[in-house]
């Protein structure tokens, strides 16, 4: 699965995107974030405050309980500040 990061999440993780094989028990957005935090210190730091992390599955905003299903691309980012 392709994972993309934006803004300070991207800066803290240290990469713009990465493609990962996920364990079979990672089925929801919440599972995914928990899994990413185990990868290394950068991921753990970037995703430490789960409350503020926003998630899009295939370019649609979703809540953390959402199942990953057939998602091709997950994006993780801070609250948006456009406009």
């Amino acid at each position: 699965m392709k994972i993309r990061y934006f803004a300070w999440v991207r800066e803290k993780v240290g990469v713009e995107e990465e493609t990962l094989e996920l364990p079979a028990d990672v089925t929801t957005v919440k599972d995914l974030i928990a899994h990413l935090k185990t990868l290394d210190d950068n991921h753990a730091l970037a995703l430490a405050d789960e409350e503020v992390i926003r998630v899009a599955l295939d370019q649609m905003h979703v809540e953390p309980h959402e199942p990953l299903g057939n998602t091709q691309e997950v994006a993780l980012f801070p609250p948006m500040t456009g406009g």
Partner: protein
Amino acid sequence: MAIVPSVRVQADDFNPEAEIKKLTAGRSDVGGVVTFTGYCRDEGGRLEALELEHFPGMAEAEIGRIAQEAANRWPLTGLSVIHRFGKIRPGEQIVFVAAASSHRRAAFEASDFLMDFLKTRAPFWKKEHLKEGGTGSWVEAKSADDADAARWQ
């Protein structure tokens, strides 16, 4: 039938007058056009520029969804949204919304709604470049923006 909004995400600057003309030229059923233009402020002289990062593809798609919701909700004759990305200096334009309708309240409400949801749902992030001290911090989301968006539910 709801109109199809025009949505553009671009690095280039834009011309509000030209956008208004697209909504009104050759028409005599438009009663009013409300526009909002958002500018980069210098925050009391602190700021050299804002760097706007965006999620290409999703930015267009999400603004399109918000705009279509506005077009379904209010009787509009036209709706345009432009959002810039990249480095933007104080005094420059960042974002533009124009809503045309035969009813002034619809035009006001649709553009107000659109700005509230652009702020909270469009995937853009602002980083400050300071006059003194180089790159500053990421602009933090304001809870006031969430409160503004919640008014429409």
